[in-house]
C-alpha cells in the first residue's frame, strides 16, 4: 500500500528519532541541455555560473543549478521566475534547450541524525561520496532520483511523480524501523 500522491502536500510525512521526511513546496524547475561553448552566455542569462563538473551545484539570486551530465543541468527557482528565465535564455544565440519541468517531480527533504543511513535503504551508492553542497542523480529502489546534500544529515530528493508514492512509503517505513532499532 503506497501513500496517495495527492497526500504529498508540503508538510511532514514522518518524524522519528532517526530521521524526518517532509514534502517540500513545489519550486519552478527547468531542464537545460547545452554544449560547453554556450555555457557563459546561458549562465549570464540565468544569473549564475553554470557548474561544469557533474554533481557540482551553483546558486544565483533565487536560483540554484546542478550539473547532472556532461551537457545537462537542472535549475531550481521560484515558480514566478520561470517565465522570466525562459525569456532571458531565448535571447541566447547558441544552440540549447531549456524546458519547464516544474510539474514533473516531487521533492522530499530527508533530515535527522540518521538521514544518510536511511538513504542507504534504497541507494546502492556510497552516500558519503556525495560531499556537502553537491548532488547526484542516482537510483533509489529502482527509481531515478536526484539527491542534493545540503548538510551532513540533510538531503533533498527529487522524485518523478509516479514513483513518489512508493518511495515516500519506503522512507516512512525506513524511518520508523531505524527509530525502533535504536530504541
Amino acid at each position, binding site marked *: 500500500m503506497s501513500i496517495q500522491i495527492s497526500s504529498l502536500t508540503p508538510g511532514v510525512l514522518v518524524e522519528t528519532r532517526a530521521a524526518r521526511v517532509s514534502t517540500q513546496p513545489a519550486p519552478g524547475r527547468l531542464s537545460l541541455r547545452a554544449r560547453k561553448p554556450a555555457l557563459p552566455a546561458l549562465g549570464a542569462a540565468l544569473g549564475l555560473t553554470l557548474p561544469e563538473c557533474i554533481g557540482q551545484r551553483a546558486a544565483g539570486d533565487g536560483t540554484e543549478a546542478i550539473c547532472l551530465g556532461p551537457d545537462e543541468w537542472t535549475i531550481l527557482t521560484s515558480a514566478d521566475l520561470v517565465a522570466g528565465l525562459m525569456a532571458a535564455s531565448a535571447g541566447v544565440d547558441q544552440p540549447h534547450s531549456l524546458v519547464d519541468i516544474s510539474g514533473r517531480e516531487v521533492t522530499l527533504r530527508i533530515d535527522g541524525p540518521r538521514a544518510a543511513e536511511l538513504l542507504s535503504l534504497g541507494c546502492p551508492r556510497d552516500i558519503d*561520496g556525495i560531499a556537502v553542497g553537491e548532488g547526484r*542523480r542516482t537510483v533509489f529502489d529502482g527509481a531515478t532520483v536526484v539527491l542534493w546534500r545540503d548538510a551532513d544529515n540533510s538531503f533533498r530528493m527529487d522524485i518523478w511523480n509516479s514513483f513518489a508514492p512508493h518511495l515516500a512509503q519506503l522512507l516512512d517505513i525506513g524511518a520508523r524501523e531505524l527509530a525502533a532499532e535504536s530504541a
Partner: protein
Amino acid sequence: MLLIHCPYCNETLPEAEFTYAGEAHIVRPPDPSALSDDEWEGFLFIRSNVRGPHYERWRHMHGCGRFFNAVRDTVSDRFLTTYPAGQPRPDLASLTAASEPSK
C-alpha cells in the same frame, strides 16, 4: 555487485546505476539500402560472443545518462577499462599487462 567506472562522471559506482547495451564498435552501414540480406543479418544479429576480454557498451542510466564503452573479461567479470564512446579500441595487450599484478 560490479563496480563500474563512468568515464564521464569520473567515479566508480555500483552496477545498479548502469545498464548493459551490447557489443561496442558495431559500425552502422553507410549505405543501408545497398546491403544484401546476409550483410543485414551480420550487422543486426551476429555478435562475436568472446570468451575473455569483450568490448561492450554500457549506459550510465541512473546518473549522467551517457553511453560509454568498456572492456570486460567475460570469464572473470573484471572490467579492464572504460572509455568514452567514440574513442578507438584501447590496445588489449597493454590492458591485460596492466591488470596482471592485481590478479
